[in-house]
């Protein structure tokens, strides 16, 4: 059975979608980029970061968790939304410890890349300087909690893709942290470097040991093209 298809409108552009697609999935396919951070195309959406918030039929909703529907009218690329998204990215920068110049993920980091794309110069909000520890107990992976942005990608990947439940949240509110399924740290869990959960981190919180700096700074993913360019290229190709 072929799923029913329908159309909606985003920033004046008609987009075709099929039943069961989220707004972000339909827009990705159509080559329209909605900035996002916690969303990962191979994982169920969770709506943690709120960066993909759009004005959908007049209401603010996260595009990753909103099912596409016929006739929707969506605002995405507006000065107000860009400013709100930038503020959310700033919040994540000041909540953790993110020293881009010497971070192992610099140039490959989705948080940093979104900061650039959304026009963040330096955070205007006060740094929180949390004290968090590195977990280096695993032979092949280390967890740098300073970088964690609580996007839940690893939690979802470990539970849904790896069938392991290595990760979870602990605490609530500003005290919420990423936790692992063993008191002695990641090294005591079932985690393996080939797990999906090891490859979905958007920042440098889950890092594979001995694999870093193989691509030099300046030649990494987002050093060449801004984040979202791959999605936007689909539309450019179609138009030309």
């Amino acid at each position, binding site marked *: 059975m072929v799923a029913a298809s329908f159309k909606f409108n985003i920033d004046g552009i008609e987009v075709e979608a099929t039943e069961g697609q989220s707004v972000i999935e339909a827009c990705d396919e159509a080559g329209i980029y909605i900035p996002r951070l916690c969303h990962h195309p191979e994982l169920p959406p969770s709506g943690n970061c709120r960066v993909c918030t759009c004005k959908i039929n007049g209401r603010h909703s996260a595009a990753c968790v909103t099912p596409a529907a016929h006739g929707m009218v969506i605002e995405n690329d507006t000065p107000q939304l860009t400013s709100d998204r930038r503020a959310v990215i700033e*919040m*994540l920068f000041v909540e953790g410890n993110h020293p881009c110049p010497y971070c192992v993920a610099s140039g490959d980091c989705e948080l940093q890349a979104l900061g650039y794309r959304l026009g963040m110069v330096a955070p205007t909000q*006060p740094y929180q300087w949390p004290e968090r520890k590195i977990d280096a107990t695993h032979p092949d992976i280390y967890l740098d909690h300073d970088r964690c942005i609580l996007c839940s990608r690893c939690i979802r990947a470990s539970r849904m893709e790896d069938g392991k439940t290595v990760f*979870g949240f602990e605490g*609530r509110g*500003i005290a919420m942290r990423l936790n692992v*399924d063993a008191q002695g740290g990641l090294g005591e869990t079932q985690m393996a470097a080939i797990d999906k959960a090891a490859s979905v981190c958007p920042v440098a919180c889950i890092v594979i040991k001995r694999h870093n700096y193989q691509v030099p700074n300046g030649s990494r993913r987002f050093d060449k093209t801004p984040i979202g360019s791959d999605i936007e290229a689909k539309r450019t190709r179609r138009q030309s």
Partner: protein
Amino acid sequence: MHPVEVIEMVSFYAFFDQTPRGRNRIRLSKTPISMMNGAREVAEAFGQSLGIAMGETSLDGMFTLEWTNDIGMADQEPAALVNGMILTSLTPLDVPGIIAALRHEEDGLGLSSYPPTAAQALKLPKSNVRPSLIQAGPLLTRPVVRARGLKAALAMTPEKVIEEITSSKLRGRGGAGFPTGMKWRLTRKSAGKEHYILCNADEGEPGTFKDRMLLAEFPDLVFDGLTIAGYALGSQHGILYLRGEYAYLWETLQETLRTRRSLGLLGANICGRQGFDFDIRIQLGAGAYICGEESSLIESLEGKRGSPRDRPPFPTERGYLQQPTAIDNVETLICAARILEKGVAWFTSYGTKESAGTKLISVSGDCARPGVYEVPFGVTVSELLDLVGGADAIYVQVSGPSGHSVAPKDFGRSIAYEDLSTGGSTMVFGPQRDVLDVAMQFAEFFVEESCGWCTPCRVGTTLLKQGMEKVLAGRATLSDLSEMEALGQTVVRMSRCGLGQSAPNPILTTMRNFPELYEARLAAVPFTPLVTLHDALREAVAVQGREPLSEET
């Protein structure tokens, strides 16, 4: 089940622990109202008697002393939760007697059970919750005869019951005001293996206690309403989600349910109506304000962290256990029971065009007669203040921290969905109070109660609190105020659920309604850093062992 999942859940709730704490838990209610009534002095008395600070456990493991957020006793503060039992109207003089009773209990009877029994509570001084209803209106005028509304409903078809509720224009009394008839209709027509009706008794909004009063003083009306809703929805299962702070009501509520079962008001073929089988169970919360948000409440009922869900799907389609679910406030269900008993015309003869009926208002703070008042919708703030003996108020917080900060210039506004929409919390502040200090306490409340799931609320609430700290310290500049306002509006727009969307309200509405109070605290300079030079150098000073030379000296 993985340990990480257990910790995930346990670490979410204020009343669960991961490490052993004192055998006796003393939790003092921390709200602007309790502070105004001397909670700090009571806390100091406990601290001195036990030799511990707030948050600590005594060396012998007998006592843990801590603050907790509003426990629904705003009309009889300072109040405390002690092993789940409620103590009210505390003074420092009560403290030795309470500690002695707890020590004695420990020697003689061992650990108290949970939920606590009334017999246990009798052994504690001040374990007396005073009746809170001060003024009854048409809804609560006695006599209240059990099951009248229910029997009237069972004489109709379920569709007709929903029709009656719809034409009564009853709207949700928790504050959001969703039309109850529409909610019931949507739930009824959603396909599912089971349908559920939930009663939201997670009354966590600081300053409100009308649901507590209803559960204590009118439990049969609540269960009548819940059973009527069950009939209307085609549901067999009603669940009362009772906030952990109200565990002291457990025993009497269970007793009421037992009586209703013995009378045939619950169970199979209720009141002889063939095929209508319905029962009610009660589940306790464990200390999380967010669980009053309906999708968080569902998550919590399912034994998980109480983080909200994204909608759609709405609970009416996929709620508790992914089945069609309606969630109604305690007061809404009572209204439904009375509408069926007394008729639609009776109900719509009260209130305004858009807000039919009456509203229960929980009044606390600087007024002569705190308590619950039943008033018709449309009553103005100043009429309400006259009623409660609070005419010299300089500020009224309507609908709790997530609601509106109302200044005297707006005391002519009325309590109604179309004007000042409210769940019922009304905190009155007299001329001796500092409005911005109250706003600061509300900002702290949201920091503690944010669930953490989404960025804007998790981080934004802390940043807003820090902004208020700077204002109160007299270090904020004009540009700080505009930045704080912009930040607040971002949090409103970007947050996932009602908590984050309303968390900036205490700051945003006091900024709007009391601008002169903010201006009076501004630093007369274009810029001051958030961190003072002295604070920034503190670590270096500690390492070096000397203060830096100041240029002015």
